[in-house]
């Protein structure tokens, strides 16, 4: 590729390369991310390649080959990339081409040419072919040759895997500008919407995929994201949900046709069941009932049935609660409380399932927004989240030199001290001595940071005292009988992202405790109804530079708190 290193010639897309499905996206001139449909009209392109008489089928066309041509169909290969044979889990490939050990890597034995001969195709070759097809689809859609991409990977993708993917992409003519983590891409996809506001929040991204589920707790502070905890699960997955439906329909079938064999024991019958059950699962995410219909399921018997959503919800109940446990577990791992979570973003194909969204919504307090199609009308299609994030990132960095990009994502730049406690001011409440802590900068905010707060003054104006303090988040569990408003032992105030939930019977509240007071400052002669502006700059060395002044007033007070050491005030 001639334009390989020339940022001006670059046409960059976002690629979300998943184990089950891949998608490609780009950013329009107006800065909106769009997902590209391939030649078959699919936006979620199955990561499957199938070979029929030397012809290569890809995506949805390859998926249908599970039934007739399973041996020459390669699927679920993403996670094998850059791995050793002994460390892979080959279960998902049970019904397609099996992975084999090949030198130091993994290969599939398929008939990929017209000759009647099986060739060993390494997993990196398969990836290259897959990426080539994705690239062609994007080029065909955009009318331009695509030569660069931002690719999303799971958070636990090792450097070796990234390296292998990078190599495979290069073979396919794609220069990988950057690998970004899937959950962060999802957060970025939401934050890049024009109506999105820049807020400090903690987001849980639950990616419920086909062969694996990944949960990440991400702190978003002024548009900068830090991952606080991640969790990966290979048991609670979409394929397991399919299995539930498979079992159900197989049993129903056996009830009706006692003489016929179990379709699950027939390879072809099982493949047909699988394909149809996935379709049924998708249909149940949209409608309240779905038709199951397979021709010649086993022994030449056609089988048709209907299932409604309630039945499905019952069948999958175990898994749904496992999903929500998984999410809660991740929150716990981040040493947070569900109350701290501002948003839960559901990503991945299974996030369409309404019951999953509602189960998760129930597991979190009402203050937490669950972003899934069934709970929020403004939610982005969960299957497209990571590709949208990747496309946005691609448009942001495509003009940069590759060198610049690698330098910017180097640990020297990315490793940053994060505040361990929130910093805020003490406002007045009933308690004169302590005051109510009000956070200005939240915990887990990367340094350096600059924030401004505008604070009201007593109605009559006059001289005010501004106490800067560190706050500790405290979860207060109150008995249902107790009246929360009368509580005096704790200073109860609300964080900006914490609604009052007093009306609820069961009460868990997020409150602040004052940890230690950092400084005191006075503003004298504030006008009646005037407001005070407080600007804090916290440096990497934990030094705090604070400026206090009356809004619209002149002068003001400046103070510096030296990092780590005891105070020495100066003007």
């Amino acid at each position, binding site marked *: 590729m001639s334009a390989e290193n020339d940022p001006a010639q670059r046409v960059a897309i976002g690629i979300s390369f998943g184990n089950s499905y891949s998608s490609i996206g780009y950013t329009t001139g107006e800065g909106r991310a769009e997902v590209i449909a391939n030649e078959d009209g699919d936006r979620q392109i199955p990561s499957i390649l199938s070979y029929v008489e030397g012809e290569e089928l890809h995506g949805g066309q390859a998926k249908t080959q599970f039934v007739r041509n399973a041996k020459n169909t390669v699927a679920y290969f993403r996670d094998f990339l850059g791995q050793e044979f002994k460390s892979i889990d080959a279960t998902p490939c049970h019904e397609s081409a099996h992975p084999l050990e090949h030198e130091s890597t993994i290969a599939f034995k398929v008939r990929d040419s017209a000759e009647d001969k099986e060739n060993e195709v390494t997993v990196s070759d398969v990836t290259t072919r897959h990426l080539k097809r994705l690239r062609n689809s994007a080029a065909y859609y955009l009318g331009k040759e695509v030569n660069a991409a931002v690719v999303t990977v799971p958070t636990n993708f090792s450097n070796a895997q990234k390296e292998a993917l990078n190599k495979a992409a290069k073979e396919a003519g794609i220069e990988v500008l950057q690998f970004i983590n899937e959950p*962060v891409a999802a957060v*970025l996809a939401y*934050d*890049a919407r024009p109506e999105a506001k*820049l807020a400090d929040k903690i987001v849980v991204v639950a990616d419920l995929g086909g062969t694996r589920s990944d949960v990440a707790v991400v702190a978003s502070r002024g*548009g*900068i*994201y*830090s991952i*606080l905890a991640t969790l990966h699960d290979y048991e609670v997955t979409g394929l397991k949900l399919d299995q539930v439906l498979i079992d159900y329909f197989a049993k129903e079938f056996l009830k009706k046709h006692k003489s016929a064999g179990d379709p699950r024991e027939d390879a072809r019958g099982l493949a047909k069941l699988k394909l149809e059950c996935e379709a049924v699962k998708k249909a149940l995410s949209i409608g309240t009932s779905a038709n199951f219909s397979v021709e010649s399921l086993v022994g030449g018997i056609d089988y048709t049935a209907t299932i409604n959503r309630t039945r499905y919800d019952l069948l999958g109940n175990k898994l749904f609660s496992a999903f929500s446990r998984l999410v809660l577990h991740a929150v716990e791992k981040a040493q947070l409380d569900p109350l701290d979570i501002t948003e839960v973003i559901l990503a991945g194909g299974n996030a369409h399932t309404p019951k999953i969204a509602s189960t998760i919504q129930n597991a979190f307090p009402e203050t937490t927004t669950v972003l899934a199609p069934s709970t929020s009308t403004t939610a982005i299609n969960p299957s497209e989240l990571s590709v949208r994030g990747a496309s946005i990132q691609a448009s*942001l960095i495509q003009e940069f030199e590759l060198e610049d990009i690698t*330098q*910017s*994502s180097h*640990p020297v*730049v*990315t*490793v940053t001290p994060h505040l361990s*406690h929130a*910093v805020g*001011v003490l*406002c007045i409440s009933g308690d*004169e001595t302590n005051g109510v802590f009000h*956070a200005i900068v939240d915990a887990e905010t*990367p340094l*350096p940071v600059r*924030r*401004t*707060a*505008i604070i*009201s*003054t007593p*109605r009559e104006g*006059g*001289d*005010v*005292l501004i*106490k800067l303090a*560190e706050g500790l988040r405290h979860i207060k569990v109150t008995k249902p009988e107790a009246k929360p408003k009368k509580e005096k032992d704790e200073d109860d105030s609300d964080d900006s992202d914490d609604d009052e939930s007093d009306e609820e019977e069961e009460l868990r509240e997020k409150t602040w405790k004052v940890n*230690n*007071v*950092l*400084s*005191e*400052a*006075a503003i*004298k002669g504030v006008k009646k109804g005037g407001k*005070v502006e407080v*600007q804090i700059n916290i440096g990497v060395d*934990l030094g705090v530079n604070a400026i206090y002044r009356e809004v619209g007033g002149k002068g003001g*007070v400046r103070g510096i708190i*030296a*990092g*780590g*050491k*005891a*105070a*020495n*005030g100066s*003007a």
Partner: protein
Amino acid sequence: MASASVQINLPLPVLPAGWTAEKDFKPIGSLSHATDRNIEPVGPHFLAHARRKRHKRTFSEDDRIQAQANVKKIEDDDEGEISEPEDPLMLQREAKDWKGQDHYAVLGITRYRWRATEDQIKRAHRRKVLKHHPDKKAAKGGTEDDQFFKCIQKATEVLLDPVKRRQFDSVDEAAEVEPPTKSETKKGNFYKLWGKVFEAEGRFSRQQPVPKLGNEKSSKEEVENFYNFWYSFDSWRTFEYLDEDVPDDNENRDQKRHVERKNQNARRKKKTEDTARLRKLVDDALALDERIKLFRQQENAHKNKRRLEKEAEQKRLAEEAAKAKEEEARLQAEKEAAEKASKADSKKAKEAAKNAAKKNKRVIRGAVKDANYFHGAGDAPASQIDSALNDVDVIIAKLDNEEIAALTAKLSGAKGPDAIKQVYQEEVKQLIGAGKLKEGELKSLS
């Protein structure tokens, strides 16, 4: 991140009495330690963070630098449009004779002319409108003269309509480039002078891009391609712009049709003239083009070279053929002579051998006589003589010339009838041994 602002509605506490501090600020504690974490290298805010960190800027510095960078960009955009000076005569123009005005000059984009993009025209129009709007003139205390403003509007109307713009461009004399004369071409640089002409003419081509005239290093193919293009030039040039105004009153239809017909004829005539003009122009260029001559010379040289080579080859072949023929004849003659000689030699030898054999035979027969016809003593009877002679004849007949010679030699060595007889007997014995004679066949020598 820019400054994110938090609104807090709870009031601040009142300053307690007796609180004092130097310059109203009293630091008390310090922040607890921070945790090091990886921030994700994703999103616009991270880019800002990376920029600050890599260039070691503070928030406000970065804001300033970014702001400056943005401002500069806007200035750069404006720089490309230095307005051209306006001819005071042009400002006096009446809007009604818009056909005579140079629309590009009115908008101040004579540098671009037919190359001007739609965007350039729009921006030029805006600039001119801002300057010449009648309201502005009125505000300055001038007259309410909006004639030039109308000229601007008309110019924009023409230039922004693709059809009208082509009509105007077709007759835009200011865009024409006069072809250089023969003497000018001889003096100056052919490629530079004519390149401009063809570039200007190329604007009428329906086929874009138009091939370039090139330079003295252009290949033959390129040059041929260039002239082929110009000899089959497909022009969109029209002459509607020069039409006489068609009276639009409904009273005189005949007059109207007459004018229309006249216009049509004029257009057709002009188009034919233009085609002829272009043809002549290309002819002239072709005639003056050194490359064509060079190519012809090369062609001729090539052809001559081939012809000479061919002739030389033929000559050489003829010579070779003649030489070969001569050689053959010579060989033939030699062979014949040799044959003749050998024939003569063999004849002589044969005769000599015959003679020798005769002589030998005579000797042999004589020897029989000397041996008294193998009859002991006394005169041999006739029968004995007869049989002896017959026997000798038989022996001779059985012997070839060489044996005869050998026998002769032996006989001449033998003296006395007994010795001779002995020689004969030996000879007979030898012959019998060789199977040539049967025992008892020879009576006299038994």
